């Protein structure tokens, strides 16, 4: 699957749920590329902006879309990576800010 196919496939599923891709393609397309990189690496699409453990069970919470997306989009208009955003975020009515990490650091095994 290439990045454009992934874009179309996810858009179809996520938009009706109220999660839009960031209209800034310079963000969205590299992030989708990275999801494909992680799929290749781990066998699942781990969040590209977080340090994955490489173990499915241990990374379950950060398989995109991560479990933190809902709260982050609600609070900041964007998920941690800013791949998924609200309609308002894309329309410019939400102030764009850096989304702080919500995942507990204990989830990183090392």
């Amino acid at each position, binding site marked *: 699957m290439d990045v454009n196919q992934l874009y179309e496939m996810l858009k179809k599923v996520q938009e009706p749920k109220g999660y839009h891709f960031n209209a800034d393609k310079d963000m969205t397309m590299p*992030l989708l590329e990275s999801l494909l*990189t992680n799929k290749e690496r781990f066998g699942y699409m781990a969040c590209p*902006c977080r340090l994955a453990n490489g173990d499915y069970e241990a990374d379950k919470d950060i398989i995109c879309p991560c479990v933190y997306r809902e709260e982050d989009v609600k609070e900041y208009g964007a998920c941690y990576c*800013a791949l998924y955003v609200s309609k308002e975020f894309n329309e410019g009515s939400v102030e764009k800010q850096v989304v*702080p*990490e919500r995942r507990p650091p204990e989830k*990183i095994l090392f």
Partner: protein
Amino acid sequence: MFKSLKKILKKKNDGMPEPDAPAKSFDMEAFHMNDIKVYALSTCIHCRNAKKYLDECGVKYECVHVDELTGDERKQIVQEVKEHNPAVSFPTIVIRDKVVVGFHKDKIDDALKED
């Protein structure tokens, strides 16, 4: 150990600012490779944008892609990140004694301005 650390640190930037680089009020010559360290993930867009910004600022830095490390090296670096940033999130940018977590242009500017 130093040797292996050096190996994983990727040297970036030739020190030349981009023509459209933002006007900076700090002395980029005052910064050396060892002054700025970027803990990043190779897949992370915020890390990529932060590094691009540092490049535009014309400062030199060391970058380590933590996701590309394995074994003891990875443990050691994750511990290092934790000491600077307990959330172990990326990018973690250490500018001399200042730590900037996430890609905040203003915080990077402030950290570069200070002695």
